[in-house]
């Protein structure tokens, strides 16, 4: 590549109105293409929602798009049946307990460890930190069988706590990694002056680190919440029934239970979608902290 200084021509400083229109027109095919792709991307989710508001006898022979020709087919009967189904409401509660419990636990335990790794001095600290990061490679499949047996031994199989602890442990390596790196970026002077003022580590952790580390904590919390809300395999293995496992139980009669499966699936994804839209910024930040700077 030749140097930029030898450029042959530079764009004229002012652009005529005609040139602007031409440029906009040149972009039109691209705009249309992206618009079509965007719509296509939405179709499956819209299809699930519409399926969830159609009566079972319509779905037995028709596709969900029939609603565009017959809008009067729409009904919320499927949903009202579901909300009177004790199995589903119980499963929703279980999901919420697991997701919230795990998120709180991972944030607290992860922040404590992250602070220790970032700002406390003790022998073997860096090796220990590397060891924790190294645990990122362990797929959760490695722990299903041993924990299944251990939970059985201690008689805590089928409890919400057993699932929360499992998720928390597997969320920790990433949590410690993310928070340690964020906390390490907090200006040293702030902590030093607090220490000189006689503040102990717990005070520093609660009053300085947690508030200053809030952006990273928010990212972590959103990831953990979505991860556990959406989990199937862990709860399925330990005999706990959050909404995913409850729907899984209906799958055997997919065609005949579609009026239950579709609305239940939609309910299961409403909460993650709300969380996603409300905290999109933190979600994307966490994602990027995890992959590129």
């Amino acid at each position, binding site marked *: 590549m030749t140097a*930029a200084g030898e450029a042959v021509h530079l764009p004229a400083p002012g652009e005529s109105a005609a040139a602007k229109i031409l440029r906009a027109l040149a972009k039109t095919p691209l705009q249309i293409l992206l618009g079509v792709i965007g719509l296509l991307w939405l179709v499956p989710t819209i299809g699930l929602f519409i399926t969830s508001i159609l009566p079972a006898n319509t779905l037995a022979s028709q596709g969900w798009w029939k609603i565009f020709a017959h809008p009067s087919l729409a009904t919320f009967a499927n949903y009202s049946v579901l909300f009177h189904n004790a199995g589903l409401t119980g499963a929703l509660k279980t999901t919420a307990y697991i997701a919230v419990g795990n998120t709180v636990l991972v944030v607290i335990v992860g922040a404590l460890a992250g602070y220790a790794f970032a700002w406390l001095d003790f022998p073997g600290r860096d090796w220990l930190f590397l060891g924790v990061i190294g645990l990122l490679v362990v797929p959760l499949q490695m722990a299903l*069988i041993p924990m299944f047996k251990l939970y059985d031994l201690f008689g805590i199989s089928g409890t919400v706590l057993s699932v929360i602890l499992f998720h928390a442990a597997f969320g920790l390596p*990433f949590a410690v990694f993310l928070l340690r790196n964020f906390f390490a970026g907090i200006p040293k002077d702030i902590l030093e002056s607090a220490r000189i003022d006689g503040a102990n580590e717990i005070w520093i952790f609660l009053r300085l680190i947690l508030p200053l580390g809030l952006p990273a904590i928010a990212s972590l919390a959103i990831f*953990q919440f979505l991860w556990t809300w959406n989990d199937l395999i862990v709860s399925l293995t330990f005999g706990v029934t959050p909404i995913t496992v409850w729907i*899984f139980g209906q799958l055997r009669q997919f065609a005949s239970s579609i009026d239950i499966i579709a609305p239940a699936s939609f309910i299961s994804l409403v909460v993650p979608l709300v969380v996603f839209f409300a905290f999109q910024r933190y979600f994307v930040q966490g994602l990027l902290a995890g992959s590129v700077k």
Partner: protein
Amino acid sequence: MSDASITAEPPPGAAPPESSGEGLARHLTGAFFLAPALILLAVWLLYPTIYTVIRSFFGRSGYLGAWVGIDNYKTLFTTSTILTAIKNNAIWVAVVPAFVTAIGLIFAVLTERVRWAVAFKTVVFLPMAISAFATGITWRIMYQQNPSQGAINALGRTVSDAFSPAGVLPSATPSTPIFQQGQGGALILKTPLRPNGVALIGLTGIAPQDMPKGSTQAVQPAPKPGAIDGVVWRDFKPGGGKPGVVEQGELGIPGVTVQLQDSAGKVMRTTKTDVHGTFDFADVPPGAYNVGIGAQTFAKPFGGYSWLGPSLITPALLIAYIWIWAGFAMVVIAAGLSAMPRDVLEAARTDGASEWQVFRRVTVPLLAPVLSVVFITMIINVLKVFDIVIALAPDSVQANANVLALAMWRTAFTAFDFGTGSAIAVFIFLLVIPVLALNIRRFRSEAS
């Protein structure tokens, strides 16, 4: 989803810790802050990892069971369902990371130039928030085979109808064995007719609601001099009727294209039946002719691809999975793009490079680190794929759709073979380690 994020990189300027301290008190504080994390990691990650590795050399049941050496690993490569899983996972690794990275790159580059890019990105990124399990169900609805129920096959039918529309009588069959099968399902009368002849073409197997509109009582036409005429009718009435005979209460089939062929089978003329089902070839030169109905009349409508059947289930899963993760790739790559030095791109453009050259020679090489992060992350995700398979693949084809994580789960928790289950888990672990190690080494070298 936490899988997406295991590739992090420490921020620059991590301050070194204070080395001054009061010895024991410092240690105790450290222990207090670290203990909860270390206990959780030791009990739920460290112990299980060691246990599972050891357990994979022992028999199917019990805390340890009987020592079997490497038999469980031999089982991995001799059991057909597990071999299918290994083969399928290889397909997943070969297809998904490449497609996700490429689509993410294309979307990221295209949206750079559009004002409402945020809306587009939100829409494409949205599936990331939804569980893989719910995605499986969502796509299972899309993939229903009946084109009037499954959206994808409905699209297929629209396309198919444009090129080869369904016939008027897709389900009809002859009522008496006086026909020979012609090419591609055409029906031809066995006995050749001469002028003055009458062709009786009786059909059954047509449901009342599938009868062409406007059909009335079938009429058997009289022989006409120099002409060949006849009737196409629904040779059935409530109670059955007598096959081969036009009776009261049997309907003529209008709109059927009847062919007149010469003895060599060449189509001489065609005509359509009227509301009574009758047709008429006037002024036919002397000779022997075959009368019949062309194959097009009986063409079956597009029945839909069996996306959820044994042969298409893995491609169906791959499409749904790419739908989820393309948004992830797009967002990460777009962030990489926005961090790219603008002046380099501008320099290339002012040097007269075309947009394609800029993309190919400048953008992609500069983005290589980001692209490899996405690619590697996807390999790891794909090696552990589970939820979407169990949700999207019907029970009857789960053996065909099998993947390692599903094989592990089924072996351990439905067949209760903990030995082989452990061996599959260790196998997944061994596959993930080098990929992830590569990633960690990469960000460590970048950080320094």
